[in-house]
């Protein structure tokens, strides 16, 4: 009887000892790495670098925490903190992907609107250019403005094609914005010159 009890105690001790050896979160690390890779593929490193960097830094921290626990005596290992950080990597990566998608959509809407605005501005500017008076700098200055409008139009065509071909929206945005500003400046310049001449003619009458 006593012999049997002793065996049972020894066996239980062995089971408890083995069970208390925590397991390294290998699958969680792989999942976290995959989520970072997915965020990168989505373009999060370019569109939302802050969020992407936060996820990458969390992964580094988690990997080191796992290695730290691995270095400990088996009975004393505890991966809870590392697991929490790994879970946050996945959360941060998902957030980065969502933010990237939202930012891309917002930029696409912005660029699409800019293309519409620019198309209108180009049409207006061409009409204004035809009406513009030839002053002392007249023809040469108007020719230069004509070239400016032509260049802006080329950019508009490029960006329109880019939108249709789903090209990188960040690049397209960087191209169209200065073109819109340029077209607006031309519009103001031409409108002012025309108004000035009209004003001058009225005053003479």
């Amino acid at each position, binding site marked *: 009887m006593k012999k049997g009890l002793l065996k049972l105690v020894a066996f239980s001790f062995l089971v408890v000892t083995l069970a208390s050896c925590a397991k390294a979160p290998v699958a969680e690390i792989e999942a976290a790495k995959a989520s970072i890779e997915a965020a990168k593929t989505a373009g999060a490193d370019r569109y939302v*670098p*802050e969020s992407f*960097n936060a996820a*990458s*830094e969390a992964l*580094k*921290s988690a*990997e*080191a925490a796992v*290695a*730290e626990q*691995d*270095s400990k*005596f088996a009975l004393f290992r505890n991966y809870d903190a590392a697991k929490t950080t790994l879970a946050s990597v996945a959360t941060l990566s998902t957030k980065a992907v969502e933010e990237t998608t939202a930012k891309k959509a917002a930029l696409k809407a912005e660029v699409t609107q800019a293309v519409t605005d620019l198309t209108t501005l180009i049409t207006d500017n061409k009409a204004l250019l035809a009406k513009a008076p*030839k*002053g*002392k*700098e*007249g*023809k*040469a*200055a*108007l*020719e*230069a403005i004509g*070239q*400016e409008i*032509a*260049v*802006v139009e*080329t*950019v508009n065509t490029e960006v329109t094609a880019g939108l249709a071909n789903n090209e990188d929206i960040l690049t397209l945005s*960087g*191209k169209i*914005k*200065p*073109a819109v*500003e*340029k077209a607006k400046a031309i519009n103001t310049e031409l409108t002012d010159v025309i108004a000035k001449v009209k004003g001058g003619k009225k005053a003479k009458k």
Partner: protein
Amino acid sequence: MKLGWKKRLIIILGILISVTVMVYAVLILAMDKPPMAEFTTCQGLLGKAKRANADVYAPEYYQAAEKKYQAALLEWKIQNENVFFLRDFTKVKALILSAIIKAQEANVSGGANRNSLKMNYLKEVELLKSKLDNYHDVFIHLPLKVSVRKNYEFGKLSLEQGLNAFNKGDIMLASKRLNDGKVKISVADKEVNALLKDYFNNFSKWQNWFNTTVKQSALNKNHAIIVEKIKHKAYLYYNGKLSKEYDVEFGRNWIGDKHYAGDKATPEGMYKVIKKKSSGDSKYYKAMLINYPNDEDLALFNMNKRQGTISKNTRIGGLIEIHGEGGKGDDWTSGCVALTNSEIDELFSMVAVGTPVTIIGSRISLAELLN
């Protein structure tokens, strides 16, 4: 007192367990510890470097730091595979320290490179802007091809796209756009420079005419007109001093001398007013006829004919005037010099028959003009 075998066994087992625990405890205490604090430090430095875009501005240091960090982590994992008392973290420590140094260098060098890139970028922007200013101030009157003007405008827009990126902190994209602009502008500049260089071959002749005319005006205490084609200006000198300045327009092919009738070029040389045409006598409000062709023009014309550069039936032309109806903003005359009616009124009232009229390409050298 004799102990039973069971009790003896328990005592022996107890001693064995105690010794084992003690040995383990000693080994655990004595075992090499991984450099966790250094890893944390390195993570912080790498994070800081990444946020400051050191991967872009100091890629060699940043990548080296990342590589060392990953190597240290891998070595740590390898050591963890060993039995705990056989683990040796010396290599891990060396690697992570090296990663820390590289990460620090990435931070310092990244910041310095970013600043230097910014400075260089702004310097280059200024240079390009001055080229564009030349285009607007000096080259605007030149009879340039559409493709040349387009290159200038593309260059200008690329520069603006670059500045847009620069203001958002994206210096790399800003530099890329700047380079795009530089390429376009340098292509345009090359054509313009070739045209101007060729035209300015006559500069010493122009200088000589200019100086002679101004001296004559001083000696005779009288008026002299100097027309500077490149600036599209006519200057009225009196007693050797500049007294008036007017904007003028020429023939379409004003770059270069006049060679024959109908070439739409404005002649270059030292002339004088030979007739004044009041309102009603001139097709262009009022006019002052000059003595084109002079002896030099005739000599050049005859030489060109002899050499066959112009046909034998070609005439040299004449009736070159300084007249009114200008202010069109275009080079529209058949080779004359046009002023606005109010300006020709003023000039007409001050200038007499016999007044020297010197038409030159430029008063200043090409280098001065472009600077």
